[in-house]
């Protein structure tokens, strides 16, 4: 069965009333979360994990995907109206979007962003439909050494590409890996780091770690530095675009997805790098150069289409390889594990109905988002008025409810608190949170693949590099690790030139 036939079947799944309802809930929640400060898509999905224990997995993932796409839509609203990005993906949007709003062109900025998201999302999701089955087919043959290499690549890139300090990234990753070790060893049944506690022998639930690091840590950190005076959003009318705006925006919309998708698919931090690249590209190609910095619409249209497509790229890697490249994907991977489903090459065969239902729902989510966001943007902006004490009290409240619901045990709340304190300390001292979460989620799987590979090779280390793919991945890892050195070597001649000049 070809991709498009499967996709049609997927629409059959996604368009049932129940799943449609989950899609609507997802995009509404996602947009709200994108607009609200302090709460991101990863935190939202983490908070919802305990609630979805009882749901059918297809419905749950349709909702999560709606949240992911919705938060990207919503994130740009705060960038434009408040100059504070609701999501990291929308950081670049603030550069041109906010000046546009200040000049009274907020409606056009919002429209350029919303349509950009729609176009980027549709192109990105189409690329997902075209590429994912092929990637999955290629990946079916890969074995334990390859998986271990890919996971190692995820660890190295999440600590090295992102963030300002590698050493702090590694510290965070190792904390996550250490937490992931707690519990019974899956292969021998030995207790590791349980200290004789029955509770710890089950390991610490990934949901609790994610909620603690994202939600509790964030609330405590915000409490320490809460801004006492809330910024006022710029009032804005209904989004619309004039003919001239469309003429200037359509090319950035069309270009963005092709920058966003590949970057979303590789472990390089999701939307941050590609949105910036899109901004730079559009600036270079623009004919209205003098307008940049004062509100050039291309600077909103391009990056927003890019951000949206990067989300599709991220989903492609997550579904076909089980490789999370962003925090949201990491938490969604945890959700798959919760349902006992292993994302990866076999997912498209084993859970074909779920996967294609999920992919079809992405298109539905995009349509819903466009319909909801174009006319309702001013309404969404009102969410920015929520009193901050209620917002953060609510986050702590739902974090507690969620952690308790995992197993109805007070001990989980204490674990939640302790890891939450860790999250606070990490934010205070600039340790990124994402590597820790990736470490907890991927650590146990990586260890299993490592040991399986070495079992096959009779303990020979060469068993880790006996496939072409693993060799390629290790070369990439070495390149990433050596990058600062390479850059130092290549930068010197430039400096010399300057001196000569």
């Amino acid at each position, binding site marked *: 069965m070809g991709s498009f036939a499967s996709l049609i079947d997927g629409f059959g799944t996604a368009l049932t009333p129940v799943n449609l309802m989950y899609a609507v809930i997802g995009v509404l929640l996602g947009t709200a979360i994108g607009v609200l400060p*302090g709460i991101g898509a990863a935190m939202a999905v983490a908070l919802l994990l*305990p*609630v979805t224990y009882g749901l059918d997995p297809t419905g749950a993932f349709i909702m999560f995907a709606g949240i992911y796409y919705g938060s990207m839509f919503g994130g740009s609203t*705060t960038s434009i109206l*408040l100059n*504070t*990005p*609701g999501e990291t993906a929308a950081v670049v949007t603030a550069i041109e979007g906010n000046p546009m709003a200040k000049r009274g062109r907020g409606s056009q900025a919002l429209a350029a962003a919303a349509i950009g998201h729609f176009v980027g999302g549709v192109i990105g999701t189409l690329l997902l439909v075209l590429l994912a089955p092929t990637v999955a087919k290629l990946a079916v043959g890969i074995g334990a050494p390859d998986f271990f290499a890919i996971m190692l690549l995820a660890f190295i890139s999440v600590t090295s590409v992102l963030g300002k*300090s590698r*050493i*702090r990234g*590694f*510290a965070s990753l*190792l904390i996550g890996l*250490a937490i992931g*070790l707690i519990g019974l*060893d899956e292969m*021998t049944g*030995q207790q*590791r*780091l349980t*200290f004789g506690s029955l509770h710890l022998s089950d390991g610490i639930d990934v949901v609790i770690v994610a909620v603690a690091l994202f939600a509790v840590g964030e609330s*405590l*950190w*915000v*409490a*320490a*530095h*809460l801004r*006492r005076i809330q910024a006022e959003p710029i009032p804005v009318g209904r989004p619309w675009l004039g003919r001239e705006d469309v003429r200037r925006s359509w090319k950035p919309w069309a270009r963005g997805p092709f920058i966003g998708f590949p970057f979303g698919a590789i472990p390089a931090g999701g939307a941050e790098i590609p949105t910036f690249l899109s901004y730079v590209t559009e600036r270079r190609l623009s004919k209205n150069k003098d307008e940049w910095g004062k509100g050039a619409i291309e600077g909103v249209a391009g990056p927003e289409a890019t951000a949206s497509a990067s989300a599709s790229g991220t989903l492609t890697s997550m579904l076909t390889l089980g490789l999370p490249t962003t925090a949201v994907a990491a938490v969604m991977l945890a959700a798959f594990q919760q349902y006992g489903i292993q994302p990866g090459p076999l997912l498209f065969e084993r859970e074909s109905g779920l996967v294609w239902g999920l992919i079809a729902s992405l298109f539905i989510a995009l349509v819903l988002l466009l319909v909801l966001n174009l006319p309702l943007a001013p309404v969404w902006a009102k969410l920015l008025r929520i*009193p901050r*004490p*209620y917002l953060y*009290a*609510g986050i*702590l*409240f*739902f974090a*507690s*409810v969620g952690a*308790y*619901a995992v197993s*109805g045990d*007070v001990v989980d*709340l*204490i674990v939640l*608190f302790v890891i939450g304190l860790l999250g*606070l300390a990490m*934010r*205070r*001292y*600039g*340790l990124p949170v994402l590597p820790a979460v990736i470490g907890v989620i991927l650590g146990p799987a990586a*260890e299993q693949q*490592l*040991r*399986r590979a*070495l079992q096959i090779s*009779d*303990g020979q280390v060469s068993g880790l590099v006996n496939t072409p793919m693993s060799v390629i991945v290790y070369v990439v890892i070495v390149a990433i690790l050596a990058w600062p050195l390479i850059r130092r070597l290549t930068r010197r001649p430039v400096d010399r030139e300057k001196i000569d000049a």
Partner: protein
Amino acid sequence: MSTSTVERKSWLKEYSELGISVVLAALGVLVLVDAIGLPEIPTERGIGPDVVPIVVGSALILVALLLARDVLRGGKGEAEGGEDIDLSAPGDWRTVLLLAAAFLANVVLIGLVGFPISGTVLFWGAAYALGSRDFVRDPLVAAGLSLVTYFVFNDLLGVSLPGGPLMGVL
């Protein structure tokens, strides 16, 4: 002497990030000791359950040392910014303590008085800690949210939260 204690205090404040190094090193030692203490099982092939923990533990200690070196050389982790975060003000740790107290109150109370009450205490307490002082609206919002959450979880989602004596009466 008092000047030296003041100096020491400001030195500790300046290099408080060394605390992270200490935590990392302690965690590393913990992981290593636990791994070495694992009973030996003769594995026919491959590696046993102690190898990965030994690698992780050693790496934690190494990173702790490298981080300490970085901090002593003047390196600083950049505190995370955010929309509601004002890094220009000094940390308000009293608010954090109050918030932690509200969180822990729920932990203690949830088994005793049930979720509807403990959740109310948590939300109201947290809102109070964060500076909300509306003594009519705050408790009403808190109680409403707790009750709605309780019923949604118990009746709609099938996840049971403890009702406590209050729900026994209703």
